[in-house]
């Protein structure tokens, strides 16, 4: 258990120090800022499109962060050493992903309401948006992790990671955006959508660590 | 009136499937030639 926490916090530390978090959050705001230039400043339009846009931008920000997740450790040999740790490799993977989640994904999600304000979402509606992203983000991280682990050791494998992860993201984006949109309207029940998102995250939690561990083991052999 | 779409559909089908068939057979014959050449080369080396 202590090993788990150690790996987790080590990854968090590395993420913060290398500025990954700042980079990802900056990316989020850059994208949100560019949108009105493309779409026009009309507030009603932005508000209507905001739920979907925020989810897409979140997904892309996550993917850019994930690409580095295993690559750096693969290159400097840390991954080999992690294999030898007296903890099931799937648990090691989970520890790394948890560290990544706490260090990078949570700040990103916490930044989303602010981005939502920029897109003219009413402040009262923001908690639902936040809840939806909290329910769906574990799925995004875990499924993106599958892409990142399969593409590890491929030179410039970032695009490959995105291509692999993209079909997995479709269900999460569909229900995530639906939840966010339901949250914007009054009288629409958001609960079921959050439930589905949570179910997707739970299912990913059960399956992804095994796939990621298998993919990493294969790369290290 | 709709004929052009029908022709286009069957035309695309022919092009895509035909292309795939041609490419696959060419890849197969190329592989066969390469393996044959490799094995013939090795036989020659054994004789020499």
């Amino acid at each position, binding site marked *: 258990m202590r090993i788990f926490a150690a790996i987790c916090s080590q990854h968090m530390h590395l993420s913060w120090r290398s500025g990954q978090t700042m980079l990802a959050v900056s990316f989020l705001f850059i994208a949100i800022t560019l949108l009105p230039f493309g779409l026009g400043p009309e507030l009603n339009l932005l508000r209507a499109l905001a739920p979907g846009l925020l989810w897409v931008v979140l997904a892309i920000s996550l993917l850019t962060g994930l690409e580095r997740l295993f690559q750096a450790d693969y290159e400097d040999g840390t991954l080999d050493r992690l294999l030898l740790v007296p903890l099931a490799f799937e648990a090691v993977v989970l520890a790394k992903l948890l560290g990544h989640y706490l260090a990078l994904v949570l700040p990103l999600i916490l930044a989303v309401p602010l981005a939502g304000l920029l897109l003219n979402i009413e402040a009262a509606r923001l908690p639902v948006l936040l809840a939806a992203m909290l329910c769906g983000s574990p799925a995004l991280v875990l499924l993106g992790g599958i892409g990142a682990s*399969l593409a590890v050791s491929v030179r410039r494998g970032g695009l490959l990671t995105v291509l*692999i992860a993209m079909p997995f993201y479709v269900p999460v984006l*569909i229900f995530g955006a639906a939840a966010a949109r339901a949250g914007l309207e009054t009288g629409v029940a958001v609960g079921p959508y959050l439930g589905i998102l949570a179910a997707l995250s739970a299912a990913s939690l059960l399956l992804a660590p095994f*796939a990621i561990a298998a993919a990493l083991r294969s790369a290290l052999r | 009136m*709709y004929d052009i779409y029908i022709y286009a559909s069957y035309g695309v089908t022919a092009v895509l499937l035909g292309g795939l068939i041609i490419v*696959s057979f060419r890849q*197969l014959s190329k592989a066969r030639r390469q393996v044959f050449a490799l094995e013939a080369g090795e036989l020659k080396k*054994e004789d020499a």
Partner: protein
Amino acid sequence: MLKALENISAFYANPTRFMALARQVHRPLWALAIGVLAYGLYRVAYVPADYQQGDSVRIMFVHVPAAWMSLFGYSFIFIASVTALIFRHPLGHVAARAAAPVGAVFTLLALITGSLWGQPMWGTWWVWDARLTSVLVLFFIYLGYIALWQAIDEPTRAARAASILAIVGFINVPIVKFSVDWWNTLHQPASVSRLARPALHADFLYPLLIMGAGFLVLFLALTLTRMQMEVLRQRLRARARKGEPPHV
């Protein structure tokens, strides 16, 4: 029965024996493919025009079988990958890699013919209806799978990674289908009707099934051709890695 299948597959696990079998089956299989397709096209030519859609319903006879094959292709890849990864049959990877471009082409075909079928009806080249969107996502799944094979240099590693992706991706397919179906019902624009299937009575059903069978045999024939190619490529790579055999 199961034991017999096991013995057969173990027998043909040896690539040389497989190649011998493949050589024998190859021509008859292609002959069958061409035959069934020719008969199918003949039947399609004499299908009466649909009262609703006119002649353009004929596009259905390539679009629907192509869509069937895109799904069949990925199922084939899934089964081949499971065979390779869990039952450790060496030809599993070969079969999966061989079938991938075939499935991808059928998927692309389904997309293009779907678009061509829809244009005269809806006035646009593309609609985000449930079926076309699902097929589009499936196309990206194929692309990712093929890209993974190409991206990893070492063959055994590539095979392992590809089979992991195939298995996990296959689980994803029904989830995507369900999500996209649901998403489409939510956003159904009033003016666009879904790709209406004409009443499938015998006049339409039998030619459709024959074309489906033709596409299936074509898929198998193409995959067999490509499997032979992959086995030979494997042999070439093995020789290249071993270098020249030592001489006395």
